[in-house]
């Protein structure tokens, strides 16, 4: 069977080149590293920082909702990744590296700046371009945003906004 496009991107021969390009780009122009509040279990500091930046934009503190950072969403994504197969965490890390890399960004017509160095409005624009881009970028967008959203909305501190509550019969 022919490899899928995502396999070529994240797991095949093409992956080595593209991820290598992404890593080289970050060597030339590193992004902003966010300090986790507890030791990382699965993600590397770059992937953690990208998740944190994505979480800020995807789950902002609006309408009385807490921020993703306040709910420790990046650390909780890291914890979730640590429970998965090691290869899954590697795949996610590669996807986040591609989103962060200035060289990959330029390759796709974006700014020559690491994602984590952009201001909020430009991060929103980059995320929208990956969301609306060709299948490869949409896959990366989905990986990054779904991990964040699932983690954010599973937190009880978001439920008042929804009108949802843990049922009376639930045990701690």
């Amino acid at each position, binding site marked *: 069977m022919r490899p*899928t496009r995502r396999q070529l991107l994240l797991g095949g021969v093409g992956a080595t080149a593209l991820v290598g390009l992404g890593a080289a780009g970050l060597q030339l122009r590193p992004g902003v590293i966010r300090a986790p509040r507890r030791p990382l279990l699965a993600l590397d500091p770059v992937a953690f920082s990208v998740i944190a930046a994505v979480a800020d934009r995807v789950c902002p503190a609006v309408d009385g909702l807490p921020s993703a950072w306040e709910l420790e969403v990046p650390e909780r994504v890291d914890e979730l990744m640590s429970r998965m197969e090691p290869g*899954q965490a590697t795949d996610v890390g590669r996807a986040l590296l591609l989103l962060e890399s200035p060289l990959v960004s330029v390759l796709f017509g974006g700014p020559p700046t690491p994602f984590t160095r952009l201001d909020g409005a430009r991060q929103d624009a980059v995320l929208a371009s990956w969301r609306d881009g060709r299948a490869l970028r949409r*896959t990366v967008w989905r990986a990054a945003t779904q991990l964040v959203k699932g983690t954010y909305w599973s937190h009880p501190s978001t439920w008042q906004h929804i009108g949802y509550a843990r049922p009376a019969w639930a045990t701690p």
Partner: protein
Amino acid sequence: MIRIGAELTGDVDVACDVCVIGSGAGGGVLAAGLVARGLSVVILEEGGHHTSRDFRKADEAFSFSMLYQDRGTRATEDLAITLLQGRSVGGGTTVNWTTCFRTPERILEHWRRHHGSTLTAESLRPHFEAVEERLGIARWDAVPQNANNDALARGAAALGWTWERTRRNVRACANSGYCGFGCPFDAKQGMLLTTLADAVAGGADLYADTRAERIVVEGDRVVRVEARVLERERTRATGVSVVVRPRVVALCGGAVNSPALLLRSGITDGPVGRRTMLHPVVGMSGRYDEPVQGWSGAPQSVTVHDFVDRGPDRVGFFLEAAPVHPMLAGVSLPVVGADQAEAMGQLGFSSSLIAICVDGLVPGDEGGVVTVKGDGRPSVAYPFRPELVEAFASAHEVLAAAHLAAGAREVLSLHPVPVRLTSERDLPRLREAAYGGLRHGVFSAHQMGGCTFGPDPATSVVDLDLRHHRVPNLFVVDGSVLPTGLGVNPSETIYGLAHLAIDAVASTT
């Protein structure tokens, strides 16, 4: 006896009559039947053993992390389709929404015509009757449908469609709406409480947290199954191995995992991994003036099948409702930022209706393909054929029409930039939207195929007795044997086929 991983501190090497790999719909029914015949049975389950004591946490993050494949993140390789698939003792039956149907005659006829099947409604009848009795499968008339399902019923009635109440495998259901977390009240009659309990009471040994890594064949016979014990909290091997030396192996890991195990084991005869069907699901959210709170009440109590047969060259679909608790809703709604906050704020007033597309019936539709990665993980590639994309578009219009007829004040698609409709006049706008992979949310809760049955070894993996074509003491007894989508929720079909397989497996020992 149920042995959990944390208690397994030394290597195990055990002989038995039958090794059942997987404890879901197929493995549970089969194991109970074999034990009832007096056979010694060892069941291997990679997931953990959880009970209603765990489920009463009502914690969505816990449930997805512990009870679903890949900690709730399983998806096709390009992430276009989210795959909800169970992973614990009881498999998918621990977390499914309890909706049961017998295999439709239309599908049985298709299998006879195109896949060499001999199955008929009459030949399956005693098997369905047996599992319906054991699992308490009956039409759910106990209470009125919840507002989420009632939207589908109202919309269907207003549009002249036929809707009906579903049948469910429950007893004394508390109508809580938490089926997908594992039943907190022991009302769901999944394998955990029924057939697995029967099997263990009858002497079966069930090893939880134990993943079958390889089925070892020498000559044309399986001689052993090699398994590793996993840490429950982290998917890592503890270093403890379990080796089972059975007379017969019944592979019951479900679609995706069963073909993957055959491939890892080098048992690659026939189209292993091919014809993987996903019943791809699209949905639309309807916002109502009155509270819906679709997370409360029996998840699926209404179904509409008016669109399941749209002709031989078109992909059909059937309609149901989906219960969306916050985490699943957050993942399912493709919007982000302030738009997401707004949408989630409306969740309690939103009904989520879904269209489940029936794959594998249109000529040339071969479904997806399961392969294994270098580290042994399964990978699912699923193409979006034009017929399926057309069905997605049509389903969106049907779902929107149902919502509007039911009184929704606004209907939103699951596109990253949703199509919004407030009246029937807006329906044509749905045709301007893009459909297909990564264009909008697509989900699958029904995985089938990959080890399909049939009489021809060139086009199937197991024969009509579910016995492997080349390895006579190897059976596959789960949803992976189904050659097409079903047009109904598949659990009862798997229960029935597993019950049917008991004789063949038992007689091979």
